[in-house]
């Protein structure tokens, strides 16, 4: 029996076709995975289902009934629940308030919170979703927030649950927990649509997989007939090779942090007694759930913040001047976390962005911009790093995420840096760009650079790193040789549930 049926859905934004004649269906009690890269049209399709957009053509049926387009309320009433990638919760309100919002008629004089409590408890028990209804959402962990989102859908008696990249923010243990809950829900008769680009998970959780590329359905397989390689190829459209790991003999220390502390500003985590040593020709992967002190550490290493106490030795010398220009000049390259906000200036042209970090060194008599040289340098780098653009005078904001990242790599790696701080370098990129970025980092390592790779993606960390450190609550555990720990242990450390004593070494 078909629970949900998309028929010939088309949607374009201007000249960009986001969904091109998509037809697919979801059966009862089935977990269907929607696989595709960023920009493949997954999110657009879900926004159409949820009434945020109206499709140009085609229709959606739920349980044989046509769904009114463009109405979130109609979708909710039809029993569709959605767990967005970016949670739609209000931090200052309680869990219960977030859940009952919109479930009661607005003309009702008195919220019936008692009944809501009861229903909430029943749901919690039935699906193993433990949550304190009176907690303020701001005080919850990311995993708990997601639980609230799921309960929110169940509370409305959803029979179809859509999860958009649900594991992007979870530790491996939390993901496992989530999968257990999902399987429980399917047993209870719900249908689930699981959107992701993580192949391992999709293979683990789903019954059937549909692959989207450039807005089209390009493949449909039963999970038991699928393999990681075949899916990756279907998703990208060609074979993709990730860079091979190669162990090198590590050299002198490039960065030494001794007992470094940083007091937190509002909304950030403080750093407590950080010890970290990074050598030439090695990549240290720093695993951790976002918001555990990565931002503070990264800003110290870029010279954007000075530690409140402790010693930072860069290339063997104690640093007492925290100044990004100075650090860049002495051989620190940065790949910032938010590439379009911190990495480039979108309104400026490409050649200007190339020059941005080296204004003083690459100008005529330290005073005038040497435009001719800068432009020819930009042209060279555009060639070398295969940046797809109209040329050095194109506006940077028109580039795709992958090409902006290439620009940043070109700018920072072309100077043969000795230390690279790479903060989530592959985030939000498609497979092709990811392998390019990772290859560049590996190349830089073999040229002699030390790299700190900050990432939430454990696959990436394990594929690239020589040693792995874990950050939780502003403290670092490790680093450990990457062949001496496994993902499970790192995951437990990421959620603070495991101390490193058992595998300690430094």
């Amino acid at each position, binding site marked *: 029996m078909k629970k949900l049926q998309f028929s010939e859905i088309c949607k374009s934004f201007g000249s960009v076709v986001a969904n091109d004649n998509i037809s697919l269906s979801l059966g009862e009690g089935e977990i269907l995975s929607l696989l595709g890269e960023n920009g493949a049209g997954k999110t657009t399709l879900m*926004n159409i289902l*949820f009434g*945020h*957009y109206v499709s140009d053509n085609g229709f959606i049926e739920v349980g044989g009934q046509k769904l009114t387009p463009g*109405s*979130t*309320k109609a*979708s*909710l*009433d039809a029993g569709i629940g*959605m767990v*967005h990638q*970016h949670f*739609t*919760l*209000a*931090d*200052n*309100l309680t869990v219960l*308030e*977030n859940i*009952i*919002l*919109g*479930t*009661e*008629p*607005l*003309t*009702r*004089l*008195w*919220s019936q919170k008692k009944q809501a409590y009861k229903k909430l408890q029943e749901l919690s028990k039935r699906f193993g979703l433990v949550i304190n209804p009176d907690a303020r959402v701001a005080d919850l962990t990311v995993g708990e927030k997601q639980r609230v989102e799921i309960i*929110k859908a169940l509370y409305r008696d959803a029979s179809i649950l859509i999860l958009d990249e649900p594991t992007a923010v979870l530790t491996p243990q939390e993901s496992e927990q989530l999968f257990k809950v999902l399987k429980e829900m399917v047993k209870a008769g719900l249908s689930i649509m699981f959107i992701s680009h993580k192949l391992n998970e999709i293979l683990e959780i789903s019954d059937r997989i549909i692959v989207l590329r450039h807005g089209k359905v390009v493949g449909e397989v039963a999970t038991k007939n699928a393999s990681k390689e075949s899916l990756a190829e279907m998703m990208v459209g060609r074979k993709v090779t990730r860079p091979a790991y190669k162990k090198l003999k590590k050299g002198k220390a490039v960065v030494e942090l001794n007992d470094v502390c940083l007091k937190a500003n509002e909304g950030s985590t403080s750093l407590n007694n950080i010890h970290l040593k990074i050598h030439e020709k090695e990549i240290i992967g720093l695993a951790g759930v976002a918001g555990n002190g990565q931002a503070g550490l990264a800003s110290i290493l870029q010279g954007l913040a000075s530690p409140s106490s402790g010693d930072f030795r860069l290339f063997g010398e104690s640093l007492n001047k925290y100044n990004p220009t100075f650090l860049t000049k002495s051989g620190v390259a940065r790949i910032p976390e938010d590439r379009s906000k911190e990495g480039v200036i979108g309104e400026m042209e490409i050649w200007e962005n190339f020059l941005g970090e080296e204004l003083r060194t690459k100008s005529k008599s330290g005073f005038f911009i040497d435009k001719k040289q800068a432009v020819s340098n930009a042209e060279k780098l555009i060639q070398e790093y295969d940046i797809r653009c109209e040329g050095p005078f194109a506006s940077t904001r028109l580039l795709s995420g992958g090409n902006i990242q290439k620009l940043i790599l070109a700018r920072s790696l072309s100077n043969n840096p000795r230390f690279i701080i790479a903060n989530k370098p592959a985030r939000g990129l498609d497979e092709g760009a990811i392998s390019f970025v990772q290859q560049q980092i590996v190349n830089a390592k073999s040229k002699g650079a030390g790299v700190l790779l900050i990432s939430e993606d454990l696959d990436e960390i394990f594929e690239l790193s020589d040693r792995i450190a874990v950050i939780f609550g502003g403290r670092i555990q490790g680093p450990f040789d990457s062949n001496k720990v496994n993902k499970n242990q790192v995951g437990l450390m990421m959620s603070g549930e495991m101390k490193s004593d058992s595998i300690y070494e430094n």
Partner: protein
Amino acid sequence: MMELFEMMLTTSLWAAVIRIATPLIFATLGELICERAGVLNLGIEGIMTIGAMAGWLWVYQGGDLWGGIVFAAIVGMIFGFIHSMLVVYLGLSQHVSGIGITLLASSISYYAYTLLIPFSTTPPKIVPFSAFEVPILSSIPVLGQALFHQSALTYLSYILVIITFFVLYKMPIGLTIRMAGENPVANEAQGINVLLIRTGAVMVGSALMAIGGAFLTMSAFDAFYFGMINGRGWICIALVIFASWRPGKAFLGAILFALFEALQVRAQLIGADVIPYQIFSMMPYFLSILAMMLVARKAAYPKALLIPFRQGDRI
């Protein structure tokens, strides 16, 4: 010093405090409702002015007092509606639109007044609301006469504090209003029309502001003067922050400010020979700033305040 202390125990002081506080209570509640829904309404000063003008005019033209209050509220709603068209539906800057509303509303008030009553040297008067004694409650010593021997509008303001609290915290519609100010996307994801909720909140809030203004011409005084709002609207903006967006605290904040104000008027009489009176006039504002610094530094303001919401947008 002793004199001041003794004064604190007199009924007349507290009666004055309540009189000064009443328009502030109305307008602060109004602003609070707007901001809870995520819209800053800097039109408050002008909406109070036109409320004062409209209510007075209704009675001056022969209407009855409660009719004047309703008329003021409707006029306030109209300006609230204009503000929401600009900032809710078109997503324009709430600051700019708010200041525009203030200028527009006060100018219209003054213009209309000059057109209607062109040649008067003394402003024409109306018969304002008279004080009404609540039986039993008014016999409480000191405070009884102050709190419960006031005009009906003052009692309405007490009731509105309670109603606002219940609507915001106990009723489903209040939850959607608060959510509109915290995370409109969450509202939309639950099938609620954020734009409608915000517009409604701004209109109701503006109506309360206008009633606050009308209190001045219809209860505290009996005529309309130029510049009579005199910054009260701006004080209410500060009071909302002082109150951390809570109705009960807004009430207390209004009382506190009114106490400063009542004290300074009396202190002027005592100390005018020694200290210039401007120093005393300054005190309520100075103390308000001080109180804000102490209380509101860690205020948890509505997260989506000032942020326009467009359907289909994602955070």
